[in-house]
C-alpha cells in the first residue's frame, strides 16, 4: 500500500468557510467535507505506465475572486472566437477563472423547462434537482482526484433537458483561465431526460499568464431512456497546466451518447472517459483526438461498459506524438454477463512523428458473455512513406506533406464537432501543434 500522507494545502475549516461564503446548502457542504476526508485517505489513481506521483494536482488557489459578469465585447478575444458568429449569441455559459461571467439561454428553451446555469447558481436555485445527479455517475471515492473535486469545486455547469425536449442548437460552455497558480475545479452535470435530445460542447483554454495552473474536471452525463446526447469538448490548457479530466456517462434503455473529444492540452494530462451502457439497446460512439508535443506526459483511458442487452459501442482514438512527448492510450471494452447481443468495437491509431516521442496503445477487451460481437484494433506507426511520396510527387514539400497527412489523420473527429467556432478552434490547434 503506497503512502499518501502528502499534506493537502487546505483543511476542513477553510473548506467550510468557503462553502458558507457561497451560501451552499447543507447537503452540498457535507459532500465537500466528505471529499476532503477522502482526499486525505485515498490514493491517486494508478494510470497504466504513466507516473503521476510528482504531478501537481493539489497545490493551487481554489478560492478565486468572483468576477463580475460582463458584456460579450469585454471577453478575451480567444473566448469570443469560439462563439457563434452573428448578432445572436448562442446558448452559452462563459467562465473566467472559475466564475461565470456571461450567460445566455434562449427564452424558447427556458419556456420548455430547460435549465442551463453555472454550478454555483444551480446549487442555489435547483438544489434538489442537482442533488439527484451530483456525484452519482462518478463516485466521490473513485480516487484522490475525484475526492479533491468534491472538496474544492469552484466552477462547472448544470444542464437539464426535460422529457421530450429536442434542442437543435448546441449548448456551449467555455472556461478560460488567466490568473497564475489558480485551480479550476469544475463539475459539470448534463441530464437528458427521456426522449430528449441535446448537443453540448465545452472548451477549456488558458492564457500564458495562467502559470502553474491546475484543472480538476469532473463531468457527469445522464442519458435517459431513448434520449440522445452529443457531447463535444476541446481541451486547450497551456503547458503550465496539470489536468485531470473525467467525463463519464450513464446511458439508459435505447439512449445514445456521442463523444467527440479534442484533447489538445500542452501540459501533463490524465484523462478518464467512461460510458456505462446500462439499459438495453443503449449505444455509445466515442471519438477522441490528441497531439502530444514538447515533453508533456499524457494518459488517456477510454472505457465502455456494456450491461444492457444489444448495447452497442464504437470507439475511435487517433493521436499524433511529436517531440519528446509520451502518451499512453488505453481502450477498455467490458461486456458484462447478461449483455447478450452486445457489440463493442474499438480502434486506436497513434502516429509517431519523432524518434524521441513515445506512444502506447493498449486494447483491452473483457467479455463475460457468449453471444456478443467485439473487436479491437490498435496500431502505433509512422507516416506512411507511400503517402508521403505520393504527395511529394505533386510538388508538395515534405514538411507540408507530413502536415497534410497528420491533419487528415485527425480530421474525422474535427468534422464531428457541432459548433463551427469550436471546430475552427480544434482545426487551428491541430495546425499549430503539428506545424
Amino acid at each position, binding site marked *: 500500500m503506497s503512502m499518501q500522507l502528502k499534506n493537502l494545502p487546505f483543511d476542513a475549516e477553510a473548506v467550510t468557510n468557503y462553502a458558507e461564503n457561497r451560501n451552499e446548502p447543507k447537503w452540498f457542504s457535507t459532500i465537500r467535507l466528505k471529499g476532503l476526508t477522502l482526499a486525505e485517505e485515498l490514493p491517486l489513481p494508478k494510470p497504466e505506465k504513466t507516473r503521476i506521483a510528482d504531478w501537481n494536482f493539489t497545490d493551487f488557489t481554489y478560492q478565486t475572486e468572483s468576477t463580475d459578469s460582463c458584456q460579450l465585447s469585454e471577453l478575451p478575444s480567444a473566448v469570443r472566437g469560439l462563439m457563434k458568429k452573428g448578432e445572436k449569441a448562442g446558448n452559452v455559459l462563459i467562465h473566467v477563472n472559475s466564475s461565470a461571467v456571461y450567460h445566455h439561454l434562449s427564452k424558447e428553451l427556458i419556456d420548455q423547462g430547460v435549465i442551463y446555469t453555472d454550478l454555483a447558481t444551480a446549487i442555489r436555485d435547483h438544489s434538489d434537482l442537482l442533488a439527484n445527479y451530483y456525484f452519482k455517475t462518478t463516485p466521490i471515492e473513485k480516487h484522490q482526484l475525484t475526492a479533491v473535486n468534491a472538496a474544492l469545486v469552484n466552477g462547472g455547469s448544470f444542464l437539464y433537458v426535460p422529457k421530450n425536449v429536442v434542442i437543435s442548437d448546441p449548448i456551449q460552455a467555455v472556461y478560460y483561465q488567466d490568473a497564475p497558480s489558480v485551480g479550476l475545479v469544475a463539475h459539470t452535470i448534463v441530464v437528458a431526460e427521456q426522449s430528449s435530445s441535446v448537443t453540448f460542447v465545452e472548451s477549456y483554454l488558458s492564457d500564458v499568464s495562467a502559470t502553474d495552473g491546475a484543472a480538476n474536471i469532473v463531468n457527469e452525463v445522464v442519458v435517459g431512456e431513448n434520449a440522445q446526447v452529443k457531447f463535444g469538448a476541446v481541451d486547450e490548457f497551456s503547458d503550465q497546466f496539470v489536468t485531470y479530466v473525467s467525463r463519464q456517462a450513464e446511458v439508459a434503455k435505447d439512449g445514445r451518447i456521442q463523444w467527440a473529444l479534442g484533447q489538445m492540452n500542452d501540459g501533463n494530462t490524465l484523462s478518464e472517459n467512461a460510458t456505462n451502457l446500462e439499459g438495453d439497446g443503449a449505444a455509445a460512439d466515442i471519438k477522441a483526438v490528441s497531439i502530444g508535443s514538447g515533453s508533456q506526459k499524457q494518459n488517456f483511458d477510454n472505457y465502455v461498459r456494456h450491461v444492457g442487452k444489444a448495447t452497442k459501442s464504437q470507439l475511435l482514438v487517433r493521436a499524433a506524438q511529436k517531440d519528446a512527448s509520451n502518451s499512453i492510450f488505453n481502450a477498455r471494452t467490458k461486456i458484462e454477463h447478461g449483455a447478450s447481443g452486445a457489440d463493442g468495437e474499438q480502434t486506436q491509431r497513434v502516429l509517431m512523428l519523432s524518434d524521441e516521442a513515445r506512444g502506447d496503445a493498449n486494447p483491452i477487451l473483457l467479455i463475460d458473455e457468449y453471444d456478443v460481437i467485439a473487436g479491437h484494433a490498435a496500431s502505433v506507426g509512422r507516416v506512411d512513406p*507511400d503517402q508521403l511520396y505520393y504527395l511529394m510527387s505533386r*510538388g508538395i514539400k515534405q514538411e507540408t506533406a507530413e502536415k497534410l497527412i497528420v491533419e487528415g489523420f485527425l480530421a*474525422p473527429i474535427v468534422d464531428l464537432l457541432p459548433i463551427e467556432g469550436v471546430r475552427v478552434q480544434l482545426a487551428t490547434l491541430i495546425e499549430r501543434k503539428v506545424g
Partner: protein
Amino acid sequence: MTVPELKINDLHVSVEGKSIVKGFDLDMKGGEIHALMGPNGTGKSTVASALMGHPKYEVTSGQAFLGNENLLDMAVDERARAGMFLAMQYPSEVSGVSNADFLRTAINGRRGEGNEIPLMKFIKTLDKKMQMLEMDQSFAERYVNEGFSGGEKKRNEILQLMMLEPKFAILDEIDSGLDIDALKWVAKGVNSMRSENFGCLIITHYQRLLNYIKPDKVHIMMQGRIVKTGGPELALQLEKEGYDGMKAELGITDDETVEA
C-alpha cells in the same frame, strides 16, 4: 519559352539490390507523345518510379536531365516542381485530406509563397477540368482517392495532371482497369494538354489507348532497356504478332524477366 526536353542516358536502376533497368535511353521533347510498351516485368514501371524519385528505386548509373536540370540530384518534390509528373499505377489514399485541398496545396507549392492561385480561379479551373473528365462535383470534397474505384483513381490522376500542367508526364498503365468510356475521358484529358510545352510518355500493355492518344513514337522495352523504336505502326504490329513475334524478329532468346 524554350521547348522542354527530357533526356535519359544509359539509366540503370536496382530495387532492393536487384538490377532491373539496364541501360535505358530516351530523348523526348515538348509536343511529343511517346508510348513505352513491353511484356510484364521488363522494367517499364521501374523507369517511371526511378525518374520520379521513389525512395525504393536506386539509380546505380546513368543520367536523367530535364532541360539542363539534373533530375537525379533532386528530391521527389523538387522534380515535381521542375515539371515532372507521374500518373501512378497504384495511387495512395490520403484520408482526411480533400482532393481540392490537396490540389490547391500542390499548385501553390509550385507557384511559391506570395504567388498563390486565387481561390475563385482555382475553383473555376477545377470545375472545368472535372467536367471534361466526367467527374462528379463531389470529387473535389472527397478525400484523396479514399473509396475511389479503380477507374475513379485513374481519372483523378489525370485531373491532377491537368491541374498541375507539368512539362513532362509519365502515365503508368493509366488504361489498366478502365472501361471504354473512362478510357475515352482519360484520352480526352491528355489530348487537351497537347502543346509544344508538354511531353508525355505513356506506359501501356495494349494498343487500344493509342487509338485515342496518337503517339509520335513507340518504344518496345525488354530486359530492362528499349530494344526497338518506331512509329504508331509498331504498336499495331505488336498487337498482331505479340511479344513472341517481336522477340523472334529481334533475336532475343533469353527469356529472363524481372519483377516490376
